[in-house]
């Protein structure tokens, strides 16, 4: 198991290195001039050169990338600004702040959004899928299947605006979306995020309902389930100890990927609800041509996705011992 984990972590680090390098070099291929954008309304050639030096973009590309990599492990000094502590993901001249400091303030919003939504879509989605599988062919199954089809065909920006219009503007039953730290006011944390959670769960629930149903239906028709039934095990035991366990593997996989993506930044969700998390940060970094920030957000998002996948592999391995041997 330990060797399995080590192998996965090394693979993840290589992936992250490749992603950071590709992002770094791609950014330079885009015909944009961050220096011009950081220069004032009246910007002459001399001033522009000064800005280039200030922004640290006067060095050759590979040198800049090497300095960036070093910064992650040992920190980095910026002339006139001071030391950026490890892990230093760079310094954003747009925000006048180390990248990691900014990202730290974005993460709580993004994590709150992801966890809250996961709470709803797991309970509703897996629950509905289980009912549909057990009550195969009944009106409950048909309703769950139809609703999930409807849910999976909807988009966040569509449901989000409709929900905001009716639930916030017209009926006034929910608060306008906002983020208040849980530690500051748990009530405001819930009321501000409830709408995004519900909307996200509508979209995601659909997948989980369909996935859970199909997996359970498949498992329930497996030979080992029939054998268990034949041996006289109770229906509940057969369902939870055999069929459910077998069905959860793929669901855990999908969940891991979804969580990684959500923590990596739910760009559309955050934009729709004007929440300031990693997603909106990424968009702003692109439009500001803020390379250090863009690189930082990309690496953090990639790390979230890659490590969520490692976690999934681990859980999967626990559920299904055959994986460990593969």
């Amino acid at each position, binding site marked *: 198991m330990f060797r399995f984990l080590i192998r996965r972590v090394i693979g993840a680090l290589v992936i992250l290195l490749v992603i950071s390098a590709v992002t770094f070099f791609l950014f330079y291929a885009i015909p944009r001039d961050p220096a011009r954008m950081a220069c*004032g*309304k*009246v910007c*002459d050639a001399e001033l522009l050169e000064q800005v280039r030096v200030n922004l640290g973009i006067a060095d050759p590309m590979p040198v800049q990338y090497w300095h960036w990599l070093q910064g992650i492990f040992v920190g980095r000094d910026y002339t006139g600004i001071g030391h950026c502590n490890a892990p230093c993901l760079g310094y954003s001249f747009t925000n006048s702040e180390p990248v990691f400091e900014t990202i730290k303030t974005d993460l709580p919003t993004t994590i709150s959004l992801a966890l809250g939504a996961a709470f709803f879509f797991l309970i509703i989605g897996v629950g509905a899928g289980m009912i549909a599988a057990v009550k195969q062919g009944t009106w409950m199954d048909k309703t769950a299947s139809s609703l999930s089809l409807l849910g999976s065909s909807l988009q966040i920006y569509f449901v989000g605006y409709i929900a905001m219009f009716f639930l916030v503007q017209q009926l006034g039953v929910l*608060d306008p979306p906002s983020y208040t730290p849980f530690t500051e006011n748990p009530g405001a944390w819930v009321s501000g995020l409830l709408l995004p959670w519900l909307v996200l769960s509508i979209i995601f629930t659909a997948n989980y309902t369909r996935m859970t149903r199909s997996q359970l239906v498949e498992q329930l028709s497996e030979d080992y389930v029939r054998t268990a039934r034949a041996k006289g095990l109770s229906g509940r035991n057969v369902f939870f100890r055999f069929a459910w366990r077998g069905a959860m593997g793929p669901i855990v996989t999908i969940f891991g990927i979804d969580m990684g993506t959500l923590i990596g930044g739910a760009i559309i969700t955050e934009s729709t609800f004007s929440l300031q998390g990693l997603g909106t940060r990424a968009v702003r970094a692109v439009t500001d041509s803020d390379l250090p920030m863009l690189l930082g957000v990309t690496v953090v998002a990639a790390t979230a996705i890659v490590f969520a996948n490692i976690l999934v592999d681990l859980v999967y391995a626990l559920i299904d011992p055959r994986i460990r041997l593969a």
Partner: protein
Amino acid sequence: MSFSRRNFLIATGVAAGSTMALSACSSGNAGGNSASKAPSMDKAEAATITVGTKADSQGPAPEMPGAKKGGTLYTLDQIDFDHLDPAQIYSSYTGAGAVLFLRGLTGYRVDSKGNTTLVGDLATDAGTMKDGGKTWSFTLKDGIKWEDGAVVTIEDVRHTFERLFADFVTEGPRYPQNWLEGGDKYKGPYEGKHLKSIEVSGNTITFRLKEGHADFNYMLAMRGFAIVPKKHDTQKKYDKRPYSCGPYKIESRSIDKSLTLVRNEHWEAGKDPVRNGYPDKIVMQFGYQSLASTDRYIADRGNDQFALSLLNEVASERVQKVMGDAKLKQRVMTQVDTTCFYFPINMTRIKDQKVRQAINWAWPAQQLKQQRGGSQVTETATTIISPLTPGHTDFDLYGKKTKPMGDPEKAKALLKEAGKEGQKLVIAFQQSDKAVKEAVTIKNALEKAGFKVVTKQVDKTTFYSEIGQLDNEFDLFAAGWGPDWPAGYAVIFPCWDGSQISEGGVNWAQLNDTGVNKAIAAASVETDPEKANKAWGEIDRQIMELAACVPDYHPIRNYFYGSKVGGVVWNAGDTAIALGKVFVKA
């Protein structure tokens, strides 16, 4: 409009620290009333911003009717402030927010009716001019304190202007650097040297300029020249946490999310003619697109009732709904902006005056206005200086008002006269859906007049770099400029004087006309405001006779706010809502 922070500053020309936009007839007033008609330049009252008396400079600021102290005021805007170090502040939006904690030598005193006067803010008056505007003196008020209780000194004032020369200052306005004697060689105060043309004596500071500038005191009202305490100047890092001598100080900041201000207990209302400082706390929130903020104001729930926007306007998707609803419209402040969007014509490529005039005659002003949302959001421009800026003279040389759809026949005749029928024109636009549509309209109109048009979409972020190149390959391109302070000089000199032609400069048309240059030189040193205004109006006409550009439009801005916000008045000097005068209703 969706602009990134810096694109917004560069691309719109709204970056101007202090452009002037005066209240149109339907502007919301302190009571939040607004008339039912759309505003327009024709109906705008072009009030002038006069220099106030010494008494006006003393403070307190004129009270707002019905105002109460206390409560928390919120703001909802799209983008965070780009800088907090005054030396780096150029955008009027940032200036509008920073007025609460940054104070300069001069500032604008606004009364409850929106009348705006230039007064001394930290100075005892709006300055004393000598030698035809070459020497300016300001005396610091006694006992003004920083947020730590230390007194603001004349050394702080000198240091503020000297640090503008440091190499980390690259984004703020650069007038003092260019105007002060010896400014070209000075490298800032950090090596222990003072700039000789800034002298201090007692509590008075004197600036010696290379040339006369009668509006130096207006220029100083830009937030870019707010005072920085020498003791706490952390140079580059000052941008992160500036020191306050205004009614509020920074409690916390989360970049791109929020900026929270709390009372500065060392501030004295009696010494501040600009700010009333009514709310106890101000929470500025960022990251809300115009559509999101508009919907919040429509819903008017929770904290949004106590909110206003300094940058976000009523979203174009909601203009009809909001402006068509008498109740909602009461909470909208409508202002005509003095920014002029125009199409400079590249004089190095289109050398024939008649061809340039033909472009003007063929211009589809009415079609473009409709495309942009009609008279509720834009007003057709016929001059370079806005009708609301001192120095404006009303003229319409190319029939924009009489023949708003364009006059292709007249244009054709001019092209024929010049022997340039079928003249090729390369027109550059910033890449956006909106620009693509406008480009089609312009192309159709010009082709109807006998031009052959090639349109080029240029990336938003490199657009101004490209049109600023002296050897660019465009004949015509969309640009915009807002004056940095309310004067003809701030409109004309940077963009139309021959001396300003440089790589990356903003004399985009590359106009270098001896007659215009001479007239600019004369108007710049004119100390009589009336004569100066007349002269700038004449120069505007001269440039338009040469047809160095096609004036396009002036934006009309609609600012929405919550039902429990009062005292929303316009500061015509800062061209922004006068945030220091806003209060929250219980």
